[in-house]
């Protein structure tokens, strides 16, 4: 089983769980399983085209999946999947 850590503001859509254990072999499968189990999470994580929203980054342990095999990134028992937003800004 891999563990998906749920960011604080999204726990309200995941029955208040701060993490969810998922049996899956890739990150894509794990997130699909998560959003099937908790459908209200889907609109927070994915856009209308079914792609991760532009500001959503996914990490397996310490690695950003964009620099691995993206959704096809393999996961093993004990891996931790984190959902981390991109944040920036400026006064102008």
């Amino acid at each position, binding site marked *: 089983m891999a563990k998906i*850590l749920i*960011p*604080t*503001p*999204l726990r309200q859509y995941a029955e208040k769980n*701060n993490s969810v254990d998922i049996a899956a072999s890739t990150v894509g499968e794990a997130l699909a399983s998560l959003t099937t189990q908790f459908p209200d999470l889907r*609109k*927070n994580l994915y856009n209308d085209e079914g792609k991760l929203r532009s*500001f959503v*980054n996914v*990490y397996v342990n*310490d690695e*950003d999946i964009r620099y691995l095999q993206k959704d096809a990134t393999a996961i093993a028992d004990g891996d931790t999947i*984190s959902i*981390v*937003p*991109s*944040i*920036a*800004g*400026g*006064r*102008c």
Partner: protein
Amino acid sequence: MIRVQPEPWATMVAHAQSTYPNECCGVMLGSIDDDNKVVEVAMNLENAYAGPQNEHYEVRPEDLLMADREARKLGMDVIGIFHSHPDCDAYFSKTDLENSCPWYSFIVLSIQKGTFHHANSWLPNEERTLAAQEPLEY
């Protein structure tokens, strides 16, 4: 409503003033009870923006990941992000809005001539097209 306790508030103001004339950034940890948020810890982060930092900031996702781990260790929640506007008011700019995340509170500290002037908290909507002002106490 978001209330920042004295210790994290002092951390945030000191960070914003010490990085002047550049923008600073950081993460706020604490507790959430319905719509009442209490900031108990402020973690200063490095502004990772590669261009002129006097008018932009960027949070490294890896730093936010570390902050989330720290929050879990402390039994707290990640409540939001703070950053500064050097010699500007504490509005939520178009750039702030378009590069925000609708999951968090965003506190903006106005630093005028190197000294803290005022602050506001903002809540971006889901589409990141509007931000509502959130009552802030510090």
